[in-house]
């Protein structure tokens, strides 16, 4: 009774203000939910253009899972057996050359970025003075801020020549060159997430280790690093996701040759670069068009899974570390 009375006392003005606030609540909630909607829309609309592989017999004849993953031509080597030639008279659409390119460049990139990123993170969080830390972090952010087209340009014009002079590669553009440039883009990811994890290790761990006589280096390697292992692993997983999806660097620095080769000295073409290189000239609604969107769906699913795993690991570690203040 009392509550109703006081409401009436305050009159229409307050009712309007309350209604306005409630309306804004709905609006903000809608904005929050839009993020969920966007993720779903991205999946639905990428897959929708690829779905004709399964629903349209005409398209399905040209592009199908059998052709992507099973078909094999006659020939002595892998290069002759698994071929990506979607526009030839008899379209060949084996994913294996593209998968080989993606995995080769990702492995080189990760082998470069993971050790360097973690080492730099450990140095920054355990040994660097405050001043050094305040230089290193913005430097890493600037590196992260270099557009991937610029990294691709640098690898194509400059790095490839240097590497060829140094190691005498037959092909200027190869997996080393593309992978290294990709690694430049992965270092900030590995560094940032590892560094976050290392700094989140509770002080008490450090103090306990130093108190029993361990040196700072022993503490860093035997206490802090193991305690932050989940975060470091998560940083690798997230970097892997980026490596699989990165496009411009590999499109420009990979040599654009879709060949099924396991050699790091051969030029390559990744899944992502294939979309970028071919979608512009593809016949709308054709099997080739659907195949490119299918590759996109595949990339989305792979990165979605690796991102989710990475996020889960980070969230779990945060919960555990909070327990130890």
């Amino acid at each position: 009774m009392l509550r109703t009375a006081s409401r009436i006392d305050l009159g229409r003005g307050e009712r309007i203000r309350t209604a306005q606030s409630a309306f804004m609540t709905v609006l903000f909630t809608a904005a929050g939910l839009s993020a969920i909607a966007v993720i779903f829309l991205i999946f639905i609309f990428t897959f929708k253009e690829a779905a004709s592989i399964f629903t349209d017999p005409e398209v399905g004849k040209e592009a199908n899972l059998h052709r992507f993953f099973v078909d094999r031509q006659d020939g002595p080597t892998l290069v002759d057996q698994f071929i990506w030639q979607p526009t030839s008279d008899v379209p060949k659409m084996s994913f294996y050359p593209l998968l080989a390119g993606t995995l080769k460049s990702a492995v080189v990139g990760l082998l470069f970025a993971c050790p360097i990123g973690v080492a730099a993170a450990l140095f920054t969080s355990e040994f660097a003075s405050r001043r050094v830390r305040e230089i290193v972090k913005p430097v890493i952010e600037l590196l992260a801020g270099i557009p991937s087209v610029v990294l691709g340009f640098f690898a194509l014009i400059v790095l490839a020549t240097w590497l060829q002079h140094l190691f005498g590669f037959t092909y200027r553009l190869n997996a080393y060159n593309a992978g290294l440039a990709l690694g430049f883009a992965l270092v900030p990811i590995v560094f940032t997430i590892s560094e976050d994890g290392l700094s989140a290790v509770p002080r008490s761990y450090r103090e306990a280790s130093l108190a029993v006589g361990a040196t700072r280096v022993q503490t860093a390697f035997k206490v802090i690093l193991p305690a932050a292992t989940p975060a470091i692993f998560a940083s690798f997983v997230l970097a892997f996701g980026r490596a699989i999806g990165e496009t411009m660097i590999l499109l420009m620095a990979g040599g654009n040759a879709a060949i099924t080769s396991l050699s790091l000295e051969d030029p390559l073409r990744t899944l992502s670069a294939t979309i970028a290189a071919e979608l512009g000239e593809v016949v709308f609604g054709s099997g080739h068009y659907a195949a490119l969107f299918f590759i996109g769906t595949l990339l989305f699913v792979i990165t979605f899974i690796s991102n989710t795993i990475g996020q889960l690991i980070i969230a779990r570690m945060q919960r555990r570390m909070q327990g130890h203040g």
Partner: protein
Amino acid sequence: MSAFVEPRKRISSTFRTNRRVVDGVSVGLLGLSVVVILAILLVILGDVVFHGISTVSWEFITQAPREGLTAGGIYPAIVGTAALVILMSVAAVPLGVATAVYLHEYTPAEGPRLALARYKVSKGRPGRIKLLLRFLSAVLATSARSAVANLAGVPSIVFGLFGLGFFIQFIGRGIDRATQAPGEVVWNQGSLIWAALTLALLTLPTVIVATEEALRTVPPEQREASLALGATQWETIRRVVLPASLPGILTGGILGISRGAGEVAPILFTGAAYYLPYLPQKITDQFMHLGYHVYILSTQSPDVEATKPLLYGTVFVLLALTFILNLAGVLLRSRTRSKLR
């Protein structure tokens, strides 16, 4: 007793010198990795500045390309990039800020598990429905949070596919069907607006994360004081929370713009043009773009050596643009962060 202590001491002293060497080398190696990262950045910047700066002149940034992109400037690409980025931020900043406000101001503090447990133990008590709503709201908040994190990891080329499949083939075609004569194509093709919207989705996580960080710097007491004075939640957000977190929101906008300005993969099929003799006039026009121009000049040029100066000049302008924005964002943010401490 002394016989026991003596040898131990000796071992420990040699051990200690060894230890010191090992420690020194380890720290040295760790420090080396930082030096390597620094060197990468300096070499890239140095190379671009060294080769690029001589190309950049007033003519270069105010003239259109000539003679099949082997001469002239990059004026249309600069204008196109600017138009794209402005349109993009008009879409991304309000939505990103609103999402961050939702995530920080309107979601329950506890996670879904705790909220569910509270609901379960409340059996038979009045007001139980509120606890159920709170649980649902916690579930939504967690999903929205992980959606934002996942959005940040979607490959940029997939954004490009989505832009083509959703904006151009779905929305664009729909608008054309409804408003244009049959056969007329206005919206069902790559254009500024579709590229900008695609990029806006890509930069959304950047804006959200920065804004949320800024909202965290506003002390809860200020909100409580405002509510205690009788302000509604919306009034509190509009008059107290948002003004206090404005620098952080600005940071998010700037970092988002800097990221969006350099991305090429999403605009490959949503509106970037190889060469246009005119500047974009409407949002349904195609446009030239600095990043795309770099890609074109370095991979499709008929005469690589002749284009090289132009290429370096374009990279220089693009890097300068993204770096200035980035630096401004990072500096602004470190100011916000020091306020948080």
